């Protein structure tokens, strides 16, 4: 059985780069989402580009409908109904559940790294599963939520990597995410990854004075923060492997 590795974090913290590093560490397993960015990043980092699964959210509702209605034409018509889309918005987060279900099935037999949405949106996906379980006694959506829930409760089936820069607001948010996920799924392992850690330059004399404050104080502050949190992996600025 494969494992699903979900990489999240605020925008711009290096989720795509970390996803590539992780995929390469896992023997070059496929990556889902953000195809173009992954290709560009692989080129920049001189890493072989793994297989990419591009999942279009507009196709998800249609896929789901096909599995219910069996007839593609009707499913396509229904998926375009504004009313259905709105009903789906006030009932379950169908999009989210369908997306998660797809990730689970793609990682059933092989490892899969997902360059996932930013933190708030990923938490929204986790919340949608629990909401569906509380709100619906039956139906296909409940069944999908149950399947995901089962996978999330298996040991070593799903891992979440919260990538963060060494900044206070980002670290506070990462801690909240870890706690939130732990409450929902005590067996789910959430690993904190610290990216772009700065070092104090060895030779300050070669650097104009205007930069001295930032060059020396920033690494000190970052060191303090590292001591306050425990990280799964710390990546130095510029590190690629």
């Amino acid at each position, binding site marked *: 059985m494969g494992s699903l590795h979900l990489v999240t974090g*605020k*925008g*711009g*913290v290096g989720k795509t780069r970390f996803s590539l590093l992780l995929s390469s560490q896992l023997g070059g397993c496929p990556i889902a989402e953000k195809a173009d960015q992954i290709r560009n990043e692989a080129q920049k980092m001189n890493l072989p580009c793994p297989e990419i699964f591009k999942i279009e959210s507009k196709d998800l509702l249609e896929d789901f409908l096909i599995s*219910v*209605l069996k007839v593609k034409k009707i499913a396509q018509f*229904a998926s375009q*109904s*504004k*009313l*259905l889309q*709105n*009903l*789906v*918005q*006030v*009932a*379950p*987060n*169908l999009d989210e559940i369908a997306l998660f279900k797809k990730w689970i099935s793609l990682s059933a037999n092989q490892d899969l790294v997902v360059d996932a949405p*930013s*933190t*708030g*949106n990923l938490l*929204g996906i986790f*919340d*949608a599963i*629990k*909401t569906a379980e*509380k*709100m*619906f*006694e*039956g*139906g*296909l*959506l*409940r069944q999908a939520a149950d399947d995901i829930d089962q996978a999330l409760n298996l040991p070593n089936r799903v891992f979440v990597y919260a990538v963060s*820069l060494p*900044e206070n*607001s*980002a670290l*506070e948010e990462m801690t*909240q995410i870890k706690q939130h996920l732990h409450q929902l799924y005590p067996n789910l392992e959430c690993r904190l990854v610290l990216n772009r850690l700065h070092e104090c*330059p*060895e*030779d300050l004399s*070669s*650097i*104009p004075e205007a*930069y001295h*404050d*930032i*060059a020396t104080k*920033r690494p000190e*502050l*970052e060191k303090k*923060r590292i001591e306050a949190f425990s990280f799964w992996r710390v990546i130095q*600025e*510029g590190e690629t492997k």
Partner: protein
Amino acid sequence: MTESSRICFVWGPGGVGKSHLAIRQTYLAPAESLLLTLDPSPRVFNLLGKERSSEAQNVKIEDQNFSIKSTDANRLFDKLNKISPANEQVARYFKQLVNGLQEFRNYLALIELAEELQEAKNPFIVVDTPPFHEAVGLHRSIFTLKDFFEKSLVQLAFKSGILNLGVKKVIDITKSFLGKTAVEQALNFLEWLHSHLERFQTAARTLESLTFGDQTEHLMVLTPESSLNYITQGKSFFEKSKKLRFLINRSVLSLPAISGNSSFAREMNQLKESETKLISKIQEVFPKAIIESIPLMVMGEDSQEELLKFIHS
């Protein structure tokens, strides 16, 4: 709000200093202004040493006084419940949706925002928003809010009477997703929601006109490291804005040239290059937007002293 009230929405990706900027904007505004946050994180309250609350709290920084409060979906429910009481099942449904659904939370936050903006008597209102990735959903919600309450909800709420064949079909399909009971519950909930339709419709219209009104400014905070995608993603929303300002926080362009091949020099030169690209992209997509910058400074203590230094930068 009064006729002379002004609004400033502060947008930006996570970690660019958006909360600091929202506080700075409110501090620089006339006395007795309001900082209203839509962001579910308590960050802006933490920086001011306050507990997150939907009740207005007074903040005093040096000689400046302003208020801070957050939107709260449960408070909106209480307000609505007083007018048209919900049964236990509907109340539970509402709470589940608030906890579980981003899109629904967005709608409620926006209804609250619209009502808060209308009721507020402050001369200046700064609206602090969630990180931009999540806020893109909020942008979409501002556009779809009116549509949702004017069209779909009306159709759904008339389920017992004049349901047309298309609507019936959609509800049948939904039953296979959710089960029969859940659809009945959803429809009961929608019926209750429908009893507040006029209020929602008014709020949706107010919000759209206030968001893009003459008295409203949109301030997008970025850093030299920010992805260019934020500019293109925000295009359809920001181009409707009458006053648009970009603020590059932690700007490095005014710092002197730095040579050598140390990792520090490489980082700074890369930042300079990214900032130049970012500014040209903004100028290309939004030729009329104002672009300002705040130079890079060491931050991270989260102390009052640091906040003051930033405010006066």
